């Protein structure tokens, strides 16, 4: 009733006021996520990117179930073949078999490999980023909220970890701790990836803790833990989401890289990286399709995620909120 509208007859009757009130609350009420969604939808590249990424996720989930060949029961060839077969459509034969050709050596279907590889590559990308975000958000949140000596100690730990050559650390850790299991690789990427996020979250908390609603929450008797998790963290969520999205792309590339070097996931469980790694010695024998299709899958996924991340950054940035 702060704004009684145009007071033709003053004071307005209760009915009039009620009417105004109804009108006001019937306006569509949007929270920040709904506003962000509207903005995101207008970002064409981001929508395309999300389709690419989500499409890849769908393929990863249902692909291996639908495929004619099961990755695990490979028929042992009588002899090793040194040239695989090219994709069927190159020779004008549009049969659904051998859509991406066949590998040399074990004569595997590249299509089956790429789709099975999508599963692990995406699981490792998303899973390890989830670990990074949880660890990084809590670490940075606690440091930023409490400040003082605790903050200094926690952030010096982050600084010293960041000064290590992370790539070599990951290579060594994958070889000796991971032992080629994908869970090991996922954990290693997760446990080395939270440093950047913790810095981001700390800086967000440093400014958010000065907000009056934090004092107001404390004045209501809310505990520090609850203030961190329920009051401040949701306010810091937008930049965290953007950084996590881009983090997934980063991990997919790094995983491919580490697997390519032969330090990552074992050959018996395909990822895009180790498919590429295996194809290496056969590419110069003309088996380009063996390397091309997993590489294409990586490019499409990473591009999709990066477009999506850009769109999210624009949609969630409070400074550009219309």
């Amino acid at each position, binding site marked *: 009733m702060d*704004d009684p509208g145009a007071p033709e007859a003053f004071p307005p009757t209760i009915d009039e006021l009620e009417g105004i009130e109804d009108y006001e609350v019937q306006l569509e*009420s949007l*929270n920040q996520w709904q506003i962000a969604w509207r903005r995101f939808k207008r970002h064409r590249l981001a929508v395309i990117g999300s389709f690419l990424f989500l499409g890849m996720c769908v393929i990863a989930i249902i692909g291996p179930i639908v495929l004619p060949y099961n990755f695990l029961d490979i028929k042992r060839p009588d002899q090793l073949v040194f040239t695989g077969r090219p994709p069927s459509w190159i020779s004008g034969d549009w049969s659904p078999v051998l859509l991406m050709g066949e590998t040399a050596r074990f004569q595997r279907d590249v299509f089956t490999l790429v789709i099975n590889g999508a599963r692990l590559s995406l699981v490792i990308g998303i899973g390890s980023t989830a670990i990074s975000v949880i660890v990084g958000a809590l670490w940075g949140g606690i440091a930023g909220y409490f400040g003082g000596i605790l903050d200094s100690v926690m952030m010096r730990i982050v600084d010293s970890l960041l000064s290590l050559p992370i790539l070599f650390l990951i290579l060594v850790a994958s070889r000796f701790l991971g032992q080629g299991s994908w869970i090991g690789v996922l954990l290693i990427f997760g446990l080395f990836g939270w440093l950047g996020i913790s810095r981001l979250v700390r800086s967000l908390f440093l400014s958010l803790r000065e907000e009056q609603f934090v004092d107001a929450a404390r004045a209501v008797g809310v505990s520090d833990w609850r203030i961190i998790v329920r009051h401040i963290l949701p306010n810091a969520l937008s930049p965290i989401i953007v950084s996590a999205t881009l983090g997934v792309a980063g991990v997919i590339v790094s995983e491919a890289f580490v697997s390519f070097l032969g330090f990552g996931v074992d050959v018996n469980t395909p990822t895009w990286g180790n498919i590429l790694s295996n194809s290496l010695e056969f590419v110069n024998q003309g088996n380009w399709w063996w390397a091309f299709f997993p590489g294409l899958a990586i490019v499409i996924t990473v591009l999709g995620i990066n477009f999506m991340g850009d769109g999210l950054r624009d949609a969630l940035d409070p400074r550009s909120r219309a």
Partner: protein
Amino acid sequence: MIRHDVAAPPRTERRGAPDPDVLLDVRGLRTYFKVLDGTVKAVDGVDFSVKQGGRLAIVGESGSGKSVTALTIMRLIDQPPGEIAGGEVWFDGRDLLTLPISELRKVRGGEIAMIFQEPMTSLNPVLTIGDQIMEGILLHQDVSRSAAREIAVKAITDVGISAPDRRIKQYPHELSGGMRQRIMIAMGLSCNPKLRIADEPTTALDVTIQRQILELIKEIQERTGTGLLLITHDLGVVAETVEDVVVMYAGRVVERGTVEEVLLGARHPYTRGLLNSIPSKGKRGHRLVPIKGTVPNPFRMPPGCKFQPRCPYAWDRCVEEEPTLIPLASGGASRCWLHDPAERVRLHAYDHDTEVLPT
């Protein structure tokens, strides 16, 4: 260090709990801020008390320490740089400054509700109104979520907002400033506190809304019998809302009394200066008299009376010696050497030429 987990300040003497009819008794409160350039004594020995169901206002300029006083009572000062250097805050038989943090959390919100200056920023933008009101209810009352929701709806209705069922699903940015301040009041209302601290509750609102909010605070206070501690720089607000007034200057109480004593018969030169510098009906046709100068630099406080550099009646004694809070025959107290019984002649001259203009 971990913030607001306050170590007990050093104690000089303890007088024990005050009378049961005194709700809040603040004694010798000192809050210092240690910054690079030195120590700012934001609150330096403040005493006052609020009776059960009583209404007290703390009045002062920006930087007089009134907001810090309110935050110190709730122990919401960030430490560091803040430090509660001394004093006692007796509330309902306990000293809040020595209470363990878990006990203090029950007092915060449950027994003392606080209303902040900026309704625009004191509600969390990502939580719904309902979530924020219900949070306090769920923390302090042993009720289910649905019961808490009903209490929240009732509180929103009680602060004069219609369609509460829909309001609790809304986000703060969908409400106007006045509405948000009502929501803050509703948050306090829903937990039946014994004391309500309102830190400049109307400063950020426009004039027509100010009045509504003040009347709401007063009406709720009278209906529920809650004590009220109002922090303000607006003497007009004081006149309409409270019974007793404490005037603060440079972290000290300079005058204390009932509303009538302070507003109609101000004793301290600072209070008179304040009253003369605000426009009112009775002063129509007169030129407003501002207080000369500004609040002293907190790092270079004058050694004697802190108001002496701006005081037109100061003399040698004020420069050399800091006045104590001198009790007055009329009931209040004034921190001015003019009210020392030995200075009766000066007081007479002072009263003669500083007739307070009618307000």
